[in-house]
């Protein structure tokens, strides 16, 4: 989470505050949890942890991309839609 916070501050000027904050913090929470669990199981190769983090990052980015597309759709933006 600390790394996610630091990366947020670093990348915000280039990609936008919310576009960076939301995905990075979700990635930070999930990856941090999984790495913590992996470490308690015993020594885990750094390569495996890095791959885990990378796959989590890609998955979260894809989910948020499609979630954003759904929020931008005309149905979501209808004047009578309470959302």
């Amino acid at each position, binding site marked *: 989470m600390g790394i996610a916070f630091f990366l*947020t501050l670093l990348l915000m000027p280039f990609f*936008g505050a*919310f*576009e960076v*904050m*939301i995905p990075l*913090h*979700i990635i930070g929470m999930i990856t941090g949890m999984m790495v913590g669990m992996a470490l308690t199981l015993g020594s885990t190769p750094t390569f495996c942890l890095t791959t885990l983090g990378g796959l989590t990052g890609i998955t979260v980015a894809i989910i*948020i991309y499609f*979630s*954003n597309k759904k*929020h*931008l759709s005309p149905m*979501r*933006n209808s*004047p009578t*839609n309470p*959302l």
Partner: protein
Amino acid sequence: MKRWCAPQTRLFENMNGKVLYVGAGTGQEIVNFPPGLNITAIDLSLKMLEKARPRAEAYNGKINLEIMDAHRLAFPDNSFDTVVTVCVFCTVTDPVHGLEEIKRVLKPDGKLLMFEHVMSRNPLYGLILKMMSLFTVALEGTHLDRNTVSNIRKAGFAVEKEQNAYLDIVKAITANPN
């Protein structure tokens, strides 16, 4: 403001008549305003207005810059046809009172156009916004977890349209004072 150029330009197409631009800041959004309008731009900070001045002077229309508090607008009732705000009501101390002031100076058939970031209804995004808000409030007074659409209704506006610009966090909102 290139990132938000398209949704802001669409929102600002609804600007007409005499316009009040609340919280002008450095005037980054002026480049997205339609031309030929008569705009009064206010901000609490003289330094911000000084930075906005070159953009205001480059605008193809008329922009008057004034120092003013959004909670105490020095205009008579029913003065403006349109009021515009961009990322202001995350920082205003009392947002509902500020919106009530806007309602007072807006004509009965006027429009409120707001481009704001708001609290998300998604619990995970909402949790992140609440966490980050602790830092942003302390550092610069910006709330990331305000329910601005609800505040607009509390101030007596009817929300005509909500257009999402990023997830359900960044929104273009159109409201009227009826």
